[in-house]
């Protein structure tokens, strides 16, 4: 096929190029620039090579934050996925109740993240929060601002409250796509409830569950707003996850060099893990095809 040559077309692309350059490419390149340079002020920079990256790899603070981050993501996925499936299995399949439950389930997803944080920050306070006050009243010495374990539990419960609906809705969509004939055949084959789940429901949900895991992983791996509002990363550094640590470093201490190196590595980690997920998912599909 002959190509039409029309260089004027480039002018039509120009606005979007400018937009992307200003909103993404130039800031990103600035970050890359900072990652390899150092300064003593007055806008004088000198080349630092891989210095910041080496510092970072030897920084206990970064490794601790990464460890906390991975632990947090692992815990919430381990809770939200099974819980979401359980909820989806028990949701009504059709009728008025189905619509009502769907609306109720989507409510937490519609709340802005900082509001979620504020809700739980107040909810958990021992003086005025319903949860904190009640726990205190029944004799549990609950205080998420002092006790690291309480802080962790609060942040995790908050995330579970906020995001289990998403997993449940995805799993529910997977379940709804199973024709009735499968359940009827299972009855005829005298399959137990567990076997129906294991051999009919779970395989049919596998695709959406992979997406749910991926979404929850990426989202929780960059979690910032909610723990920042509730605990501010504390007590101590107990709930300082990667993004909180990064913001502290970049904006609190204004260590732009190390923070830039940090961002790049953060980005690479997410890219790596997403790539692993992608590969696993496409392999699953291939086995399926």
């Amino acid at each position, binding site marked *: 096929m002959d190509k039409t040559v029309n260089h004027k077309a480039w002018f039509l692309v120009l606005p979007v190029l400018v937009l992307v350059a200003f909103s993404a490419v130039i800031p990103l390149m600035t970050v890359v620039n900072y990652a390899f340079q150092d300064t003593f002020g007055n806008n004088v920079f000198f080349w630092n090579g891989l210095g910041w990256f080496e510092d970072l790899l030897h920084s206990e603070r970064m490794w601790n934050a990464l460890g906390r981050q991975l632990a947090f993501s692992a815990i919430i996925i381990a809770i939200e996925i099974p819980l979401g499936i359980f909820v989806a299995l028990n949701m009504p399949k059709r009728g008025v109740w189905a619509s009502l439950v769907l609306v109720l389930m989507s409510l937490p997803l519609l709340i802005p993240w900082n509001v979620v944080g504020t809700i739980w920050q107040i909810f958990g306070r021992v003086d005025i929060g319903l949860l904190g006050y009640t726990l205190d009243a029944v004799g549990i010495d609950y205080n998420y601002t002092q006790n690291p374990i309480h802080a962790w539990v609060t942040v995790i419960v908050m995330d579970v409250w906020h995001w289990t609906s998403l997993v449940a809705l995805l799993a529910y969509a997977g379940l709804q796509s199973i024709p009735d*004939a499968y359940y009827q*055949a299972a009855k*005829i084959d005298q399959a137990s409830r567990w076997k129906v789940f294991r051999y009919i429901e779970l395989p049919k949900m596998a695709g959406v569950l992979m997406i749910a895991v991926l979404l929850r992983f990426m989202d929780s791996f960059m979690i910032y707003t909610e723990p920042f509002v509730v605990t501010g990363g504390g007590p101590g550094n107990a709930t300082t996850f990667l993004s909180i640590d990064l913001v502290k470093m970049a904006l609190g201490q204004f260590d732009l060099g190390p923070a830039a190196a940090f961002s790049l590595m953060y980005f690479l980690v997410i890219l790596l893990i997403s790539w692993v997920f992608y590969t696993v998912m496409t392999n699953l599909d291939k086995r399926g095809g």
Partner: protein
Amino acid sequence: MAKITLDNLAHSYLPDPKGPQDYALKELDHDWEDGAAYALLGSSGCGKSTLLNIISGLLIPSQGRILFDGVDVTRAPTAERNIAQVFQFPVVYDTMTVRDNLAFPLRNRGRPESYVAERVAEIAAMIGMEHMLDRKARGLTADAKQKISLGRGMVRKDVNALLFDEPLTVIDPHMKWELRTQLKKLHHDFGHTMIYVTHDQTEALTFADKVVVMYDGRVVQIGTPEELFDRPEHTFVGYFIGSPGMNLLPAKIDGRQALVPGGTTALSGSYSGLTGNIQIGVRPEHVRLSRDEGLPVTIRRIEDVGRHRIIRADLMGHDLNIIAPEDQAISSDMTRAVFDPARVNVYADDWRVKAA
């Protein structure tokens, strides 16, 4: 295997049915004989799937009883009835191998593994899938999957009946023929009671010993393919079976003569005292074109379907189909149609009337 008896059975999906129009399945008494192959034939929404689901126990009828060999199973759950069902869309357990699929119903019933292995081998040979036992069921073709679900039904030796709910809908045409032949052979070799739901008359007529034709929630005729063709008990049977279906013409009956639009035609017997909406029915196969005798017709078009020709004609404003043998010459002066008197049926209010 068992004889299945339907006793005064009816079903309505409404909680409080008022009249006959509320019933998806109208009152029905019928014995499904042990070891026979039945086809349940009817258009969509005629109640055939409802009937099948009642037999398999997925649905509890609003009235009446269903008995297996005289034992009342009306309220027994599906698993207790020992029936097997093959669904419209292939139902296989995707993540299992073909072998595990076939073994599934036996393992669920706690049969010893040696027995399971032996039965699976037998069934695999029967459905011709020995060479792919260790493959995952996922990714097999639709007809292979249907064979697996058929095999899963037959793997239990004590199965009372095999039910098929339009099992060939998603199968390629050339595989349909093979599967149907295989089913017929399995029935011949093992003698299961088989009930086969379909809206395809070819499938019904080639598969079954007896065809049960349903219309509007009612069984209108139960008979051999031959009976359905020669003596349709209801105008629906005449219209539904045959390609094209039976010609129906409004008529007045006078003894051995029927007065139809355009003239009279002879009947094989004498009828008297008929009331209601009277029609005569004659199959296109039993009408021939003629030059000088019979009723005046206008030929609208001729379709050559290979082994014969279908003539679409008009008789005083009524459609009339005629099937002419391939070797018969048709000329433009053939403007009359003759009915074979022995093959003309008389209907009063859609039901066939016997000659006095």
